[in-house]
């Protein structure tokens, strides 16, 4: 055992004299950096995070309506549980982490209600897994697929609500949405809508119809030529003017319009890349099968294109999650916006480093898991070949 480590170190760290020097040098600095980091972590007060956790996670969302967010999470984890049961090996570790994390969090100093909810999240995943495996049998695929498709509109209905103040699901206006909740809602929306819009733009750009082609090229290139922030301002300041006087759209929707449009243009280019990567013989084969254009596109070409660009797509989702942070510049209280609001509270004025570090951690966990997933998919697809 010991000798194995030594051999490994010899091969990977000290194989040449200059590598040995570099290794020693780096180890020294690394230990020093880690030590000062740890020292800093223990020297500052972190009370700002638990005290503002509600604000960071949900913004100004009414406290008595928070159960709705929990409920969405419960349904989501249940669906995730079913999905695990369908997947092959190789993700067991991830699943275990997903189940254990809420359970571990529940043992921390949250309120009793939160602890119960967290525990239920773990249980829901296990229940989902078990029912997927033993209860639903062959129908699990359909249940999971339908579940995920309904899940997104379900989130909106739950978060937004539709009844009066005394009803079952009172309306919660978008100006009360904030923090991670808002960031996630915008991310999910822009992922879905920009994919759909991007697909149309990509098809338009490949179209033989000259008007449609140039229109698509125009939209794609103009959008890709400007920073996202100008589109946000366009949506923010100009869109209300451009709409008829009797129509007003909320600021959140306008911000979303900007974000979706922006990412759709990039998505369109990704999808176009997928089309170009596809061999011409596929078109010819479809033609030989006597499919018409529409049929060959929907049945033969698109499925392959989408399959090929899944890693790229998933990877571009990290960009979308990260870009939601820009809405703080037009005054929306997403994660970054909330961090500024927290800093305004006299009590926490000097704690902005901790808050920013915590935010970075949230973004990192979100984006890193997305890019990991993309790499896993890529690896499994290469394996297929």
């Amino acid at each position, binding site marked *: 055992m010991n000798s194995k480590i030594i051999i490994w170190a010899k091969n990977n760290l000290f194989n040449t004299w200059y590598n040995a020097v570099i290794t020693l040098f780096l180890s020294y600095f690394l230990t020093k950096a880690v030590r000062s980091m740890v020292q800093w972590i223990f020297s500052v007060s972190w009370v700002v995070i638990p005290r503002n956790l509600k604000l960071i996670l949900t913004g100004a969302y009414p*406290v008595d309506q928070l159960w709705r967010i929990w409920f969405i999470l419960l349904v989501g984890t249940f669906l995730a549980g079913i999905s695990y049961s369908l997947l092959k090996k190789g993700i067991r570790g991830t699943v275990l982490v997903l189940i254990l994390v809420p359970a571990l969090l529940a043992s921390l100093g949250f309120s009793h209600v939160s602890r119960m909810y967290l525990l239920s999240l773990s249980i829901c995943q296990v229940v989902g897994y078990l029912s997927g495996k033993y209860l639903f049998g062959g129908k699990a695929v359909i249940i999971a697929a339908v579940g995920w498709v309904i899940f997104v509109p379900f989130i909106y209905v739950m978060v937004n609500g539709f009844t009066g103040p005394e009803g079952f699901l009172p309306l919660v206006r978008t100006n*009360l949405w904030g923090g991670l909740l808002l960031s996630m809602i915008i991310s999910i929306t822009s992922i879905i809508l920009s994919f759909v819009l991007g697909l149309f733009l990509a098809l338009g750009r490949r179209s033989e119809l000259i008007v449609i082609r140039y229109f698509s*090229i125009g939209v794609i290139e103009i959008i890709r030529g400007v920073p996202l922030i100008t589109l946000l301002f366009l949506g923010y300041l100009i869109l209300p*003017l451009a709409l008829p006087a009797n129509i007003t759209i909320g600021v959140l929707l306008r911000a979303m319009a900007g974000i979706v449009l922006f990412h759709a243009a990039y998505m369109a280019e990704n999808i176009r890349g997928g089309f170009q990567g596809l061999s011409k013989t596929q078109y010819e084969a479809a033609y030989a099968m006597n499919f018409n254009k529409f049929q060959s596109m929907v049945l033969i070409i698109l499925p392959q294109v989408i399959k090929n660009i899944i890693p790229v797509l998933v990877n571009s989702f990290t960009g979308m999650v990260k870009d939601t942070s820009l809405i703080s510049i037009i005054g929306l209280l997403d994660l970054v916006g909330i961090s500024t609001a927290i*800093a*305004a509270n006299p009590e926490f004025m000097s704690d902005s480093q901790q808050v920013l570090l915590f935010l970075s951690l949230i973004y990192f966990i979100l984006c890193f898991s997305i890019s990991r997933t993309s790499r896993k998919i890529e690896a499994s697809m290469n394996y297929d070949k």
Partner: protein
Amino acid sequence: MKQRIMLVLLTLLAAASIISCGGKEQAAAPVAETQVVERSNSTATLDTVMDRGYLIVGVNASNPGFSYLDPDGNYLGFEADMGRSIAAAVLGDPEKVQFRPLTSKERFAALQSGEIDLLIRTATHTMTRDTDLSLDFSAPYYYDGQTFMVRKDSGIKTIADLEGAAICVLTGSTSEGNLSDIMASRNLTYKPVLFENLDELMGAFEKGRADAWTGDRSGLMTRMRNTADPSAYTLLDETISKEPLAIGVRHGDDQWGDIVNWSLYGLFFAEEHGITSANIDSIKSSTEKPEEQAFLGMRSELGSKLGLSNDWAYNMVKKTGNYGELFDKHFGPESGLSIPRGFNKPWTGGGLLYSPPFR
């Protein structure tokens, strides 16, 4: 590549068409006026608010004392409460109000586009804003003035001492232009350090990014109390501008403007006459003064003249208190800020708060 070049040309073309359109500005003006009238008739803010059942007020999310978010996500502060007062006057319930956090950059656009009903966000009433931006302003709810905050040990006593200094200022505020003007008029050079939001600015200032911080006296004072060591800072005696902070409403909706104005006057009036949320009921039952009776909705029907219920002023003072109560709650000694009232006290006490008669 060709396509891209064409695109830029197209954009330029669009720009050019707008320029050419702008050339006709003079000719188009009369048309504009008739349209304003039509527009305001078709969308009376009061009706919208009544239908909607609550008021939407544009505020700041991070301005301690004036308006800020607490950890539970509620808006607190003087301006937020002023929004609640008007909600109480219009709808009879101070909680029938939604707050929209706005940056100083977007605040007027939000009002213009109809996204908010009222703007209570430390907006200074200026002539350009009143005319160019097609806004209307209420009576000032807070008389402020721009000055500088400096460290006591910096040796800066007057504006002249600021030669060569780095000065923080919030971008998008009137302070930015005032600063530029005053320094230019006195031939002083300085380095402006601009910030999008106050927290960023405050953090940087405290750490010594700049030698002075210019802004409204009230804001500087609140922020000063929140610094790690308030005794290290001081404000210059000179005031370089008048900053009457007023509530913004859309131009052309006179009825709504009246409501906002008279609600504000109501808060002034109540303080002037010693009517508070605690004693309002006893005053209502005992007062002999005709004006107080009118104010409380017992005599003439002042409320219905505004399109509101007759007990609007009663509701407002009863549920949110008079001007003095609001001021003490958010700026008084108990708030930890202790901002002197200065001009912001009733005229009877030597201040500038002067309500026209409720008759």
